């Protein structure tokens, strides 16, 4: 392969282009200026989005990655630029999002001298990255960036950080690029053991009350079709985790809803009734399992998983099937008996009725004067017809969005699941819309989280990216307030929010906006928002002290799920 003599900074850009990157999010600064200088030269090939804070760059890259399945890229300078990335990196790590972050670093001769804007970002980011590396020589750049993309996207995806000293950006070297196809110490996809698949199939076929729980692994593994086929042949009821949302259409007859703390009544309760529990691409997070010592103890557990470290980590398995879930589902399908499990389904339906009567009915048709979060989400469903990408922040509104939003197609739910990062949704929605410009992207955000990354309205204004923003404003940090009400005797410590005029702020950024305070105005406002070709900001004033139910209190058993 031929080489050309270029600077390390130019090599960074050429490496990104070689990896198929055409969009990156970032913020310039001293130690990354050589790379920005090259970005200026390559601006027709590589589009750089200037965010308003580096955290926004990571969340935008995450939103892009989650909506497209491609690697998101964020770039920042050394010191505070790099440390501002950390929250997004940690979020991507726990939610298995493929992302490459590139940070500038002081020159090699200054490393360890406490130079201006020097920080040990390798040390800081180590526990929250899948891999990280400090480049101190220009000639290392192609190999390291190739490795970064390979590691970020392969196996169980995750974030990678590459720190590049300023001298390595300036120095020239003979550049050539070769994609990384393997690393000898890294086995991203364990080889599928067909005996294990057969063992799993036999156990599933013999089950009287089998129950499937599935997570983001189905989406990351692009195994939606294979999963649906297995589901439909086996006739087994299936529940999704928060990150598994949209891997299956919401209204699929075998979809029995969401697991976990604020999930649906039936799947949580019947977790402790099933005889075989089959998990696909999920990791038995504590928000899903509740008290582990009483979680599905009666059931034999089968775990289909790509990451060996997840096997038996929280829940002891009877059969573990390691490998790529797309491949294992395809191998499983012909071994399964076709069944319908009608009586077992009836148990789910009966419990779903109870949940509808005691929770959902009032949420969607509230008797209160104030609007409910649930009816707002339902109104968005009505106008989007379930075709929108829903990007939610963290808190009560997130749980309402995840419980009530309808999804017709995969990669339509983008939320901060594992880390619970308030401030995630606004920048993530920017990334999702840029990654999927043909789809409607609706960010659903609380009044608290919105103010954590509110400055990204500036990015929306500057780029004219047409995202739709819905603020569900209850003038409280609602989830914490709910806990204070239920577990801290109504002592509302620091959860009351005195908010600014959000509409005026949005208008300051020249974003079309509207505030809804009355039920009769909601329908038209949502319709207008979704009809808008431009970005649109909709503030909905909701009941101040509504709670999200059902709820499994922390440390309680899944079958202790409360309806009120």
């Amino acid at each position, binding site marked *: 392969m031929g080489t050309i003599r270029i600077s390390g900074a130019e090599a960074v850009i050429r490496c990104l282009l070689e990896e198929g990157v055409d969009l990156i999010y970032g913020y310039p600064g001293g130690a990354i200026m050589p790379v920005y200088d090259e970005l200026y030269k390559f601006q027709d090939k590589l589009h750089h989005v200037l965010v308003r804070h580096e955290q926004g760059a990571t969340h935008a890259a995450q939103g892009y990655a989650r909506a497209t399945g491609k690697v998101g890229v964020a770039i920042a300078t050394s010191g505070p630029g790099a440390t501002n990335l950390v929250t997004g990196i940690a979020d991507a790590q726990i939610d298995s999002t493929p992302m490459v972050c590139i940070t500038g670093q002081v020159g090699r001769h200054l490393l360890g001298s406490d130079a201006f804007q020097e920080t040990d970002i*390798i040390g800081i980011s*180590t526990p929250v990255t899948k891999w990280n590396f400090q480049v101190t020589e220009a000639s290392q750049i192609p190999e390291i960036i190739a490795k970064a993309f390979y*590691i970020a996207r392969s196996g169980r995806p995750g974030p990678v950080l590459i720190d590049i000293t300023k001298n390595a950006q300036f120095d020239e070297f003979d550049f050539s690029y070769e994609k990384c196809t393997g*690393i*000898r110490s890294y086995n991203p996809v364990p080889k599928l053991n067909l005996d294990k698949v057969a063992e799993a199939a036999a156990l599933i076929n013999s089950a009287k009350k089998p129950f499937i729980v599935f997570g983001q692994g189905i989406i990351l593994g692009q195994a939606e079709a294979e999963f649906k086929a297995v589901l439909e042949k086996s006739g087994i009821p299936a529940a999704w985790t928060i990150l598994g949302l949209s891997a299956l259409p919401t209204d699929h007859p075998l979809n029995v809803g969401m697991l976990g703390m604020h999930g649906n009544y039936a799947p949580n309760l019947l977790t402790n009734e099933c005889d075989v529990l089959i998990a696909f691409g999920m990791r038995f997070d504590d928000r899903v399992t509740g008290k582990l010592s009483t979680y599905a103890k009666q059931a034999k557990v089968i775990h289909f998983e790509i990451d*060996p470290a997840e*096997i038996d980590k929280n829940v002891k398995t009877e059969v573990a099937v390691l490998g790529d879930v797309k491949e294992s589902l395809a191998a499983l399908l012909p071994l399964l008996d076709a069944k319908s499990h009608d009586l077992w389904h009836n148990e789910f339906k009966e419990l779903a009725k109870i949940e509808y009567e005691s929770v959902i009915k009032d949420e969607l048709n509230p008797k209160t004067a104030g609007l409910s979060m649930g009816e707002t989400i339902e109104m968005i469903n009505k106008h989007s017809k379930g075709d929108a990408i829903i990007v939610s922040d963290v808190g009560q509104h997130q749980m309402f969005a995840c419980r009530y939003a309808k999804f017709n197609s995969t990669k339509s739910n983008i939320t901060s699941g594992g880390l619970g990062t308030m401030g995630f949704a606004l920048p993530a929605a920017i990334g999702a819309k840029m990654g999927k410009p043909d789809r409607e992207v609706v960010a659903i955000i609380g009044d608290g989280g919105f103010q954590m990354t509110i400055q990204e309205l500036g990015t929306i204004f500057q780029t004219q990216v047409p995202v739709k923003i819905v603020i569900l404003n209850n003038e409280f940090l609602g989830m914490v307030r709910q806990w204070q009400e239920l577990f801290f005797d109504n002592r509302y410590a620091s959860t009351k929010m005195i908010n600014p005029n959000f509409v005026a702020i949005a208008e300051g950024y020249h974003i079309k906006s509207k505030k809804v305070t009355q039920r009769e105005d909601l329908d038209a406002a949502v319709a207008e928002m979704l009809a808008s070709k431009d970005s649109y900001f909709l503030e909905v004033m909701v009941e101040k002290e509504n709670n999200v139910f059902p709820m499994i209190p922390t440390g309680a058993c899944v079958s202790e799920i409360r309806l009120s």
Partner: protein
Amino acid sequence: MEDKTFTISVYSENNVGLLNRISGIFLKRHINILSLNVSESEIENVSRFIIVVNTTEKWVQNIVGQIEKQIEVIKAFYHTDEETIYLETALFKIASSLLFDEKQIQNIIKDSQSTIVTVSRDFFVISKSGRRSEIEELYQKFKPYGIMQFVRSGRISVSKEKMEISSLLETFK
């Protein structure tokens, strides 16, 4: 599940920063490392970490899983004391005068099968390799006479069973 002593063996690439990555796995779980030794393994450029911890088997499984997940880790194992051959080395620095004034010192050296590394006018240095208990015992014997300095290495060990990694490492040669 009760706490036991486990020896964790990690084969990895010899890269800067990996020690930080591995030690963070223990830190995150609040597990104290009793001893740590890093050296080159039987294969060039492949490092071998020997980490000793006192914890439950469930935790050690979890930790080994997390260690093995690191990109630059080739393989990680854990063993109980019964499954390994292991020892530590200790150095004792003692005043030379004692060698002549205290007859018993010479007997202790002979009986413990330790070796004299160096002798100078002011001090001599004894090295002893063996199990922790043997070193402890020797320490207790020297203690009444006065020890100027004492240091003990981390545990090094090899497994009794063949490590599954041997054939994999062959391909790295």
